């Protein structure tokens, strides 16, 4: 889902994923991605327009942000420092876990037990204050967590938004505080919590990785959809393409989600019943859509007119906690949010190469757009697009007059075009019961599968979604280890 496409002549869009931050620094280093053309341009700040004519504009410059928050609440400005420090500590604790093969607490062997003890010891080594924060982060709702630090509604609403991205949860749902941290761990050049665009769009990241892979000796074939994973005597032996061509190999490593891998690309009868049951109930529940706009000019926000620097960062439609929660309420009962949460970026301001001179592209991430809609997505696509444009227009009334083209992607489109089951952008929900040793299924969180010589390496494995690369790297290391131990036998 990290691709750049010319959707309308002259306008390049990062069609799905639109910002980058989570890509693991060790991957950038080990694959030497900058040499392969990866260049990350900073995305500075988040601008939240408010219906009362005010706004909240946080930027990377800490002191500016502090002054801005103080405009809303002095207490919050002070708490913001403390909060930042605490989150960085939490990030330090969680980060090594991202590169870890999850321990299996039910495993009968000593290794699993020791892995768990080691994890326990790391927790025990935290200071009591950090332990307290860590436990809260793992279990609370984003809003409950933020309520302890801040009083400004719009600040809490905008911050809590990162807790719900890609999940079918609301900002008041327990478990969302963790996703807050997941996004806080964004790291570019070792600087915490910074986000950016890839020059040339998100596709440039994939292209750089592909280049690095080719140079290391990988062959890549595009336009080769796989119809089946071939098996023999309980082992994966290769794949059959839709064209009928069969390719045999010692190992098959699937980067698509578990539903496609186990239920579509093979006969579930090859797998243990318990495992199939677990995969069947693995939750996707896509909740977001995407609206890409080709613009003749720039949107003019009522609360901060002009083409200022606020348009170069993220623009967040998240005016209050209740607004966010009501958006979720609609989705719970199978409807598109009447007033959705929208996260917009205008990459053409930072990287003019993606649009014709004077024109712009605007990418709007929209939540909630529930996959399981009461109604038909194909019929409601344009109505959904209208809702999004309408919502933004309340803050930037000139928007409608500058739209040249509009592309609306519903969760159903994400499923059809990008192979994301139920349109979930993370290949399955990032909820506690689907994380770590439970992702994607209990007992099968270590990249191997019940079918010998078949591995998983997608976002449906630990540590989950986002343009992070960690599942792929972890899976490769695990596979190499198994290979050396002679476990991968034809």
């Amino acid at each position, binding site marked *: 889902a990290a691709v750049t496409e010319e959707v309308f002549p002259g306008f390049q869009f990062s069609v799905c994923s639109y910002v980058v931050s989570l890509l693991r620094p060790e991957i950038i280093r080990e694959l030497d991605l900058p040499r392969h053309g990866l260049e990350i341009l900073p995305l500075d700040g988040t601008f939240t327009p408010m219906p009362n004519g005010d706004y909240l504009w946080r930027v990377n410059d800490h002191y500016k942000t502090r002054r801005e928050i103080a405009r809303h609440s002095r207490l919050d400005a002070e708490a913001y420092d403390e909060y930042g420090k605490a989150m960085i500590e939490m990030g330090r604790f969680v980060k090594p876990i991202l590169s870890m093969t999850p321990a299996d607490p039910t495993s009968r062997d000593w290794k699993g037990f020791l892995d768990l003890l080691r994890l326990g010891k790391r927790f*025990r080594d935290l200071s009591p204050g950090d*332990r*307290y924060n860590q436990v809260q982060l793992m*279990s609370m709702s984003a809003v409950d967590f933020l309520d302890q630090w801040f009083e400004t509604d719009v600040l809490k609403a905008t911050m809590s938004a990162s807790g719900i991205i890609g999940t079918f949860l609301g900002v008041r749902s*327990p478990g969302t505080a963790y996703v807050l941290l997941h996004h806080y761990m964004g790291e570019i050049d070792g600087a915490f919590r910074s986000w950016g665009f890839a020059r040339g769009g998100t596709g440039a990241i994939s292209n750089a990785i592909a280049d690095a892979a080719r140079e290391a000796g990988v062959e890549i074939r595009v336009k080769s959809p796989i119809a089946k994973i071939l098996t023999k005597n309980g082992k994966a032996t290769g794949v059959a393409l839709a064209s009928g061509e069969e390719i045999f190999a010692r190992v098959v490593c699937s980067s698509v989600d578990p539903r496609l891998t186990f239920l579509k690309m093979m006969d579930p009868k090859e797998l243990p019943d318990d495992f199939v049951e677990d995969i069947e109930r693995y939750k996707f529940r896509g909740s977001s859509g995407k609206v890409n706009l080709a613009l003749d000019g720039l949107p003019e926000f009522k609360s901060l007119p002009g083409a200022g620097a606020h348009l170069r960062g993220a623009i967040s439609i998240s005016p209050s906690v209740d607004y966010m929660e009501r958006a979720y309420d609609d989705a719970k009962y199978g409807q598109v949010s009447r007033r959705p949460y929208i996260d917009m970026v205008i990459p053409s301001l930072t990287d003019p190469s993606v649009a014709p001179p004077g024109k712009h592209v605007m990418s709007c991430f929209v939540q909630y757009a529930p996959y399981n809609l009461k109604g038909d997505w194909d019929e409601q696509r344009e109505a959904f697009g209208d809702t999004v444009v309408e919502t933004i227009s309340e803050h930037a009334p000139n928007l409608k007059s500058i739209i040249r083209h509009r592309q609306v992607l519903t969760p159903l489109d994400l499923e059809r075009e990008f192979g994301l089951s139920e349109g979930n952008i993370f290949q399955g929900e990032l909820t506690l*019961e689907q994380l770590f040793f439970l992702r994607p299924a209990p007992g099968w969180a270590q990249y191997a599968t019940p079918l010998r010589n078949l591995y998983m390496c997608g976002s449906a494995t630990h540590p989950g979604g986002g343009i992070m690369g960690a599942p792929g790297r972890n899976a490769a290391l695990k596979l190499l280890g198994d290979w050396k131990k002679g476990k991968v036998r034809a």
Partner: protein
Amino acid sequence: MTGTPDVLVVGGGHNGLVAAAYLAKAGLKPLVLERRKVVGGAAVTEEIHPGFRCSTLAHSGGPLLPRIAADLDLASHGLKTLRPEVRVLALSPEGKHLPLYDDPARTATALGRHSEKDARKYGEFHASLGRIGKMAAPVLSMAPPDLDRTEAGEVWQLLKLGKDFRGLPRRDAYRLLRWGPMAVADLVAEWFETDLLRAAIAARGVYGMLGGPWSAGTGANLLVQAAFEPHSAGPASFVAGGMGALTSALADAARSAGAEIRTGVEVSRIDVRDGKAVGVVLANGERIPARAVVSNADPRRTFLNLLEPTELDPDFSNRIRNYRSSGAVGKVNLALSRLPKFRGLDGDAPAMLAGRIHVGPEIDYLERAFDAAKYGEFSPHPWCDVTIPTVLDPSLAPAGAHVMSVTAQYAPERLREGDWNGRREAFGDAVVKTLAAYAPDLESSILARQVLTPKDLEDVYGLTGGHIFHGEQALDQIFTMRPLLGWARYRTPIAGLYLCGAGTHPGGRVTGGPGANAAREIAADLRRRA
């Protein structure tokens, strides 16, 4: 009592009484101080209308841990438990009700009328929950371990627990790990397709909580309850004479073990000198010294109201302030001239009505009820957990008449519009109207009505924020984190001050667990110091 008491128990709720009884049995001299005229706290029987007695707050047992009933020989102190055959009757708006029997095989048969598939799966669910509950039950009687200083005995206990966990069938072990963080709505959907069954079981995960069935972590509540009561339908433990009879049996047991109980005395402050609790000061100015003080009050009340702010580290106070204890439950108690007629239940009443009656036919119904609470409104159509105790225990009302006790959720402590004193009757009306849809003659049979709002729970029963469990039982506020991480072993930052209420492990409901665990820790400390 002669001489100075060893331990002062602030508050005579069921946990305070259990703690006092165990402390007395350990050879100490406890003195219980209760503000109200009756002991029992939230487990009391009170007259709501001349001749009509009702368990005004809690209306069924958690149930009380069997070991406590045995240790304190409550049967000899007059405790008589009543067990209905139908534990839960889930009402359907169309009159196709679903009874959950004490006997799971009968439940499966009844389910067959709704869904063949569910009838088949129910037995497996019942058995699995039972195995998990049985494995987890010893955790309830443990003081949550201290991460930094784990005592040898506890290490052994934990290892044994680890061994029992590994002894579970692997499917159950995974279920235990997965179910905890799940939304209970997802959990029941994995098993069943019948809306009534889904809702009746899911409701157990949100009881007392400011959360809906779609809130993550509500699965954990189901597991905690399974540890208390492994039955898939949940507890249905009633007491002859109402819940007050249970607490008066506890008080009797405490007294006969050597505890003293004083009612009508309000503790206004815990007396602290040099960082050590040395007694209490009553509202009338009287000072009572003691070797230790144990508070049955909730954590917020104990630390923020009964102590001088300067006695506590600001970080600690801050965390207690952030301890979530905003209540979600209201109570409506009715004196009825007759047993109401429920639609679709003609021949089967009253046996069907002897347990808990569940009103909340679908997951979405429960979730919508919760939605209102998020925005500071009580549910226009609340989820109601109803009991008619007079079906099994006619002594509570005049002949032929009945009492109905309704726990209604959601009634958020903080209303956005108006205040609870102004909205009390509107809330009562919403509850009665909701029930009248199932029992059309209910309204005409009401002789008297008592409505208790979260504000009343705070003002009358001393539950801060009106939270019936002394604080939200969410993943971040249970076990080693109840009430706070690092302070889950009944001790507090003030030497000689302990907690024994539902704000400690294993939490709310009338189980006696916190009181018994706290007493064990206190007795060990005092023995060490003696």
